C-alpha cells in the first residue's frame, strides 16, 4: 500500500512507467496501430524512392507515412518501428523470464545446497558473470542454423548467458535468509529443504529479485539491439530497432530520419524502463547495495 503510494509520488518513476506502458501497449497492438495507419511493415514502395540517389525517400513525413519510409525499400517506418517494439520487448521479456527461472533456480540451489553444490554452482555463476558474453553470444548465434526462429533463439541465448546476476542475488539472499531464525524454526518443525525453499525462501526472494529484474529488462533490450546491430540478431524482414539502426548507419547523411526514429525510440524506451527500475529499487529497498552495473 504505502509502497505503491511512494512509487506514485516519484515523478521520474511515473514518467517512466507511463512511457514504458505506452510502449508495451504499442507492442501488443502493433497490428491494430499499423492497420490504423493503413500500412504494414513489409510492403515495399519503390515509387516513393529516388533510385538514382541510392534509394533515398522522395518525401519525408506524409499523411500516409507518419514517420516517412525506409530508404532502400520504401517500407513504412511507422509500421516498422511499431513492429520493432514487439521484437525488442518480446525478446527482452522472454529472456528475462528464462533468466529468472534459471537464475533463481541455480541461486537457491547453491544457497541451500551443500558446500560442494554451492562451490560448483557459484563458480559457474562467477564464470558467466565474468566472461564477456557478447563474444559467446555472437559465436553461438552465428553457428546455429539460420532456419531456427530468430527472436526465440535470441531470447534463449540472452537468457542462457545472462542469468548470472540473478543467480548471484538469489544465492546471496538465500544465504542470508537461511540463517534467519524463521527458517530454522521451520526446519525444527520438520520441514524439508523443498518445503523450506518454497515457503520460506522464495517469497523472500521476490522483492530483491524482482527489483533486479526490473534492471535486466532494459539491459536485455540493449543486448538484443546490439546483437541485431551486429547482424547476428533478428533478421529482416522482421523489424528490430537494433537492426534498423544498423542499416541506418549507411544513410547517415542522406536520410537522418532513418537513424533518428529507431534510435530515439530505443533510447526513450530504455530510459523509461531504467526509470521504472530505479523507482522500484528506491522504494523497495532504499539502502540496497548497488546492483546496477
Amino acid at each position, binding site marked *: 500500500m504505502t509502497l505503491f503510494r511512494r512509487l506514485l509520488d516519484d515523478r521520474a518513476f511515473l514518467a517512466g512507467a507511463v512511457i514504458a506502458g505506452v510502449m508495451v501497449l504499442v507492442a501488443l497492438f502493433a497490428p491494430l496501430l499499423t492497420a490504423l495507419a493503413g500500412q504494414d511493415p513489409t510492403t515495399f514502395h519503390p515509387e516513393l524512392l529516388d533510385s538514382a540517389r541510392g534509394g533515398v525517400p522522395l518525401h519525408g513525413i506524409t499523411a500516409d507515412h507518419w514517420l516517412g519510409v525506409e530508404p532502400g525499400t520504401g517500407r513504412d517506418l511507422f509500421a516498422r518501428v511499431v513492429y520493432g517494439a514487439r521484437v525488442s520487448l518480446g525478446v527482452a521479456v522472454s529472456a528475462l523470464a528464462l533468466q529468472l527461472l534459471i537464475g533463481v533456480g541455480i541461486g537457491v540451489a547453491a544457497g541451500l545446497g551443500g558446500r560442494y553444490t554451492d562451490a560448483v554452482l*557459484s*563458480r559457474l555463476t*562467477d*564464470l558467466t*558473470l*565474468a566472461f564477456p558474453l557478447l563474444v559467446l553470444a555472437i559465436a553461438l548465434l552465428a553457428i546455429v542454423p539460420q532456419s531456427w526462429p530468430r527472436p526465440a533463439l535470441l531470447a534463449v541465448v540472452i537468457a542462457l548467458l545472462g542469468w548470472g546476476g540473478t543467480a*548471484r542475488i538469489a544465492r546471496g539472499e538465500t544465504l542470508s535468509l537461511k540463517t*534467519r*531464525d*524463521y527458517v*530454522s*524454526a*521451520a*526446519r*525444527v*518443525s*520438520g*520441514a524439508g529443504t523443498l518445503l523450506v525453499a518454497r*515457503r*520460506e525462501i522464495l*517469497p*523472500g526472494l*521476490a522483492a530483491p529479485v524482482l527489483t533486479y529484474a526490473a534492471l535486466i529488462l532494459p539491459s536485455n533490450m540493449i543486448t538484443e539491439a546490439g546483437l541485431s546491430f551486429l547482424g547476428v540478431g533478428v533478421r529482416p524482414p522482421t523489424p528490430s530497432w537494433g537492426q534498423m539502426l544498423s542499416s541506418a548507419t549507411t544513410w547517415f547523411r542522406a536520410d537522418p530520419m532513418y537513424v533518428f526514429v529507431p534510435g530515439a525510440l530505443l533510447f526513450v524506451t530504455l530510459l523509461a524502463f531504467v526509470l521504472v527500475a530505479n523507482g522500484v529499487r528506491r522504494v523497495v529497498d532504499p539502502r540496497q*547495495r*548497488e*546492483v546496477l*552495473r
Partner: protein
Amino acid sequence: MTLLSVRDLRIGFGNTQAVDGLSFDLEAGGALGIVGESGSGKSATALALLGLHGEARIEGSIDFDGLELTGASEDQLRAIRGAGIAMVFQEPLTALSPFHRVGDQIAEVYRLHTGATRKAARERAVEVLRQVHIADPERRARAYPHEFSGGMRQRALIAMALACNPRLIVADEPTTALDVTVQAQILDLLDEVRTATGAALLLISHDLGVVAGSTDDVIVMRRGAVVEAGATDQVLVTPRAAYTKDLLAAVPKPSPARVIQGGPLLRVSGVSKRFRKFTAVDDVTLDVREGETLGIVGESGAGKTTLSRMMVGLIPPDRGSITLAGADIARRRGRSVQMVFQDPMSSLNPRRTVGESIADPLRLIGEPAPRVKIEALLVRVGLAPSHYDSYPHQLSGGMRQRVGIARALAPSPRLIVCDEPVSSLDVTTQAQVLALLEDIRLERELTMVFVTHDLAVLRQIADRVVVMHDGAVAEVGDVAAVYDQPQHAYTKELLAAIPVADPIEARRRRALRRVELAGAGLSGSGLAGAGLAGTGLAGTGLDGAGLDPEPLGATQPE
C-alpha cells in the same frame, strides 16, 4: 566548579522530539550517569554536546567550560572535539576506520589538536595505548582495528579519547556490545582513567548495573526528559519516580529452588562440533532431566548457540550423540522438540501472517485446519485471536517473542530449547516474557533448556546450570550451588563481573577486582583460585581471529 551545564535542551528530528527539555550539570572531574530505555534520547544528547547532529533542531543551552556550544561555530566546535570533550562510542567494531592503523588514528587526532610532530604523535599513541592496558603497545599500534578483539578496540577508542587530555569523556553505552567480563574491565578502566587524568565522565547506558558502580550522580531519562535525578546512591537505592522503580523491579531476582525428580530426557554425550579449524563445541556431555529447566551460560562465542542447535537437530554434531528419550535427535524433530529464538524479528517470516507461521508445524504433523487451536494459543501467550492475521512488522518486539513461544508450543513438544529468548528485549518486557515462559512451563510440565549470557536471568529461571567456556563445559550444578560456591575459576570470574544495580555492592566488587588484578600483576603469575588476571585478557580474545571477510571469489564484490 561546573564543567558542563545543560539547560532546557531540546532536540527534534522532523516530527519526533528526541530530547525535550533536558537539564543537568556536571562538575569538573565528576561522573554522571544517564540511564533510560532505548529511544529515550541518550545518544541524541551525547551527539548534541559535540554538535554532531546534521539535520536536527537544537534549542536550549549547552555550556561547556564557559563556552556556549549550541550556537558555536564549526571551528570552535572542532577545537573542542577530542581536545575538550572526547567521545567513546557504543560500537567498537565500526567506530574505528578499517583502513588505518590504530596507532595512526590516535596520532592523527593528537597532531591535529597539538600540532605535534609525527614522531611525538606516534609516541603519544603508544603511551595512551599503554595507559589503557594494551599489551605490547608499540607493536599493537601498528595493527589494524580488525586485528583487535572487541574489548581491545574499545580500549583503543578510550585511548583515543585520552590522547588530548580532554576535560570531559562522554561514553555512550561503551559496553553494550561486550561480554560481561570484558564489560567489567572496560568500566574499571574508565573509572581508572577518570581518577588518573581528572577528566569528567558522562556515562550513558540503558543498564542500571553499568552506571551503578561508575558514577557519582545519575539521571534517569524517559522520552527525552528527566524522570529522576540525584546522587547515584540515592536514586538507585531509594528511587522516587515510579519509572525508576519499575526499572529496578525488572532486574531479575533469584527464585526459590525446586526439586526435580525426572530422569534424563535429552542425553548429550561426547558431542563436538568444528567449523573449519575452529572448535565451537568441544566434547560436551550432559543430560537434560525430564521437567527441569537447564540453564546454559557462557560468554559470547562459548558455543551456546551451537550446542542448543545441535540439541534440536538443526546442526549435526561432528562427534558424539544426542538422543531424545533414547532416539537419535535427528529423527525426532518436529513434534517433540521445539525452539525459541533470540531475535524475534528474524524468527518470524516477515511475509507470512503470524497465524500461518504458527500453523506450519501443525500442518506438518497433519492438522489441516488448525485456526481455532492457534487462536487459543495466541490468547494463552497474551495476544488477541485477531493477531492471527497480523504480519510480524505490525507487532512489537515483546509481542513477536510471544508469537515465537506460541509457535514452539503449537505441536505440544516435550522439550523447548530457548536460545537467549529475552536478550534483545527491554528490561521491562524481558521480565514479562520470562514470567510467561515460567507459567507455561509449569502449566504444561515442559522440560526446558534456557540459553543465556545473563547470569542474573538464569538464577531466576533455571534449576540447574551449565557453564560453558571455549566450547567445553566448565561447570555443571544446581543453580544455588554454582552461584554460591563456584568451583571453576572461570565461573568465579563470570560471577564477579556481573553488574549489579546496587551502587555500594558494585563498588565493593570493583575494589575486589582491583585487588586481585594488582595481586596478579605483582606476583606475575595468576592466582589459580582468583584467576582474574590470567583469564581476563584471554577472555577478550586478545589473539583470537578478528574480522575475517569472505575470501574473494572470481568477481566479488559487485
